[in-house]
């Protein structure tokens, strides 16, 4: 296995349905042995892309190249599919035992009985469902059923595995435990994987690369840290959890920094932009800190603003705090910090964030309107 090698490529892949375009991918290359996560809202085209890449959905245009062989010419769709496996959101198990389900792909390939038994037992154990081998697939819990579905897919030892939101119908603890197991199996087997999800945390945890999709197109693709911290546009920024997205006009250029006027307040950002230019400032909530009183002297951050707490929203392990600094700003605080600050809605606070913590999108460089 060569990790730098592209195992699968899609070129000018287009799918049309009912007169409209549901998928429009000019190029996608999937590196061997890596995990690519497709993220995006419902209807973004993630599932369609998975189906089109696996040739389960007929594309109206374009080509798919697997290991430098063009699928559909001398290399048939059937031959290509025998290298793949797919796991859907629903487990789609057959009405038979767990063992027979996991054996299905091998039996379809007429594998020798001894091998079927050996491989099935191996994957039943790997997914922690060995004790369920003889049980009817209809009597499994949601988590057990999805484990069986994953074991069935891995048992054929595919070169590429497609996962279409495999955890989305599971409750959080089941999801967590299954995700952990899948993560270790993926790392261990180095199976090239393409997973669709609308959960960015899932994508961050499992992926080597993230592709953000919207309206059938890939808007941005890159390593998770890159996509999270340097979104190419407002859509990607909001989808990857950037809570504060502000538009402002550059009023001054300094050495390596510039000042932006946003709703009458001035924000300092790092980078290059010319006065008069409009820019989008993306500030992730974890980069904003809050304190009581005037604290110019206790922070090295360039941007310090007095603000009003508008709303405090419990969000699991932390609180999401919406601030009004003349412009809207969002931060996350822990329960401990909230109690320390005696934080309540309507109180005055000081919010600060570093100039380097702001991701700047230069509006005039963006393609299309906006």
């Amino acid at each position, binding site marked *: 296995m060569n990790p730098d090698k592209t195992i699968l490529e899609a070129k000018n892949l287009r799918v049309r349905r009912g007169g409209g375009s549901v998928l429009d991918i000019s190029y996608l290359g999937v590196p061997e042995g890596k995990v690519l996560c497709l993220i995006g809202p419902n209807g973004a085209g993630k599932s369609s892309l998975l*189906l089109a890449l*696996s040739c*389960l959905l007929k594309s109206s245009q374009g080509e798919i190249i697997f290991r430098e062989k063009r699928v559909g010419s001398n290399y048939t769709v*059937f031959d290509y*599919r*025998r290298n*793949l*496996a*797919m796991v*859907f959101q*629903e487990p*789609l198990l*057959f*009405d038979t035992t767990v063992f027979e389900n996991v054996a*299905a*792909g091998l039996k*379809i*390939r007429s594998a020798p009985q001894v091998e079927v038994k050996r491989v099935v037992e191996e994957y039943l154990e790997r997914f922690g469902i060995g004790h369920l081998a003889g049980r*009817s697939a*209809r*009597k499994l819990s949601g988590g057990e059923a999805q484990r069986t579905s994953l074991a*069935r897919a891995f048992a*054929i030892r595919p070169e590429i595995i*497609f996962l279409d939101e495999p955890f989305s119908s599971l409750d959080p603890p089941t999801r967590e435990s299954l995700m952990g197991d899948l993560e270790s199996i993926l790392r261990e087997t180095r199976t090239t994987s393409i997973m669709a999800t609308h959960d960015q945390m899932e994508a961050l945890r499992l992926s080597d690369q993230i592709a953000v999709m919207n309206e059938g197109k890939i808007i941005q693709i890159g390593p998770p840290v890159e996509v999270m911290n340097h979104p190419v546009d407002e859509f990607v920024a909001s989808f990857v959890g950037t809570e504060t997205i502000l538009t402002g006009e550059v009023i001054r250029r300094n050495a390596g920094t510039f000042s932006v006027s946003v709703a009458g307040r001035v924000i300092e950002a790092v980078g290059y932009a010319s006065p008069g230019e409009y820019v989008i400032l993306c500030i992730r909530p974890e980069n904003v800190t809050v304190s009581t009183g005037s604290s110019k002297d206790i922070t090295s951050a360039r941007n310090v603003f007095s603000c009003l707490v508008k709303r405090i929203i419990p969000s699991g392990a932390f609180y999401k705090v919406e601030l009004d600094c003349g412009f809207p700003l969002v931060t996350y605080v822990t329960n401990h910090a909230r109690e320390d600050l005696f934080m309540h809605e309507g109180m005055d606070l000081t919010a600060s964030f570093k100039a380097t913590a702001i991701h700047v999108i230069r509006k005039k460089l963006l393609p299309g309107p906006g």
Partner: protein
Amino acid sequence: MDIIVEGIKQAFILLFTLDPEVIGITWLSLKVSGTATLISLFFGVSAGTMVALTQFPGRRIVVSLINTGMGLPPVVVGLFVTIFLWRNGPLGFMEILYTPTAIIIAQAVIATPIVMGISLAAIQNLPANLRLQILALGATRLQMVWILVKEARLPLLAAIMAGFGGVISEVGASIMVGGNIKGYTRVLTTATVMETSKGNFDIAMALGIILLLLAFFINAILTHVQQRERPR
């Protein structure tokens, strides 16, 4: 009231003494309707599955026709099969009118749309992505169809029951194309009609009871298989 009591008595005497004529009629009924059901299974399941799995212009009309066919009146089938098999008819050269084969053909025509309609619904009711899942496991199209049919086996058993139930109890077509010839094309239903018209209620009742028992046992066996298979 006496007629009924006498009829039931006579019926049991005929049954338990294994009257050769009654046994002959029963066996022929089973053979004819069983064969017709098997033929209808072959055509019904394959055509029903094909319609369920393919998209083509006019598909809705075809599905409506199949559903209408599920209620095909046996006398109409009898009429058309008679015309086709009539000496001067398109298939007259085969000389099979008034033979058990003719009844099998007519009954298969009646049962096929029933089996087809239920198969179509059974395959359509499977999860939409199941087909894709099977193909993604590396199956050929034929393997995919076979797995789908296996997945729909419980409703398909219902199709067998409905098909067999429809033809074993049918009388119009059997009389028209079989002619109710004693010892040759006389089946339980046609014999019951004839004995009733002759006023031989005891024999008619005996035949009726046998018909009911037959339908009951065949369905009981299939139901047993179906319920044993059903996930609990």
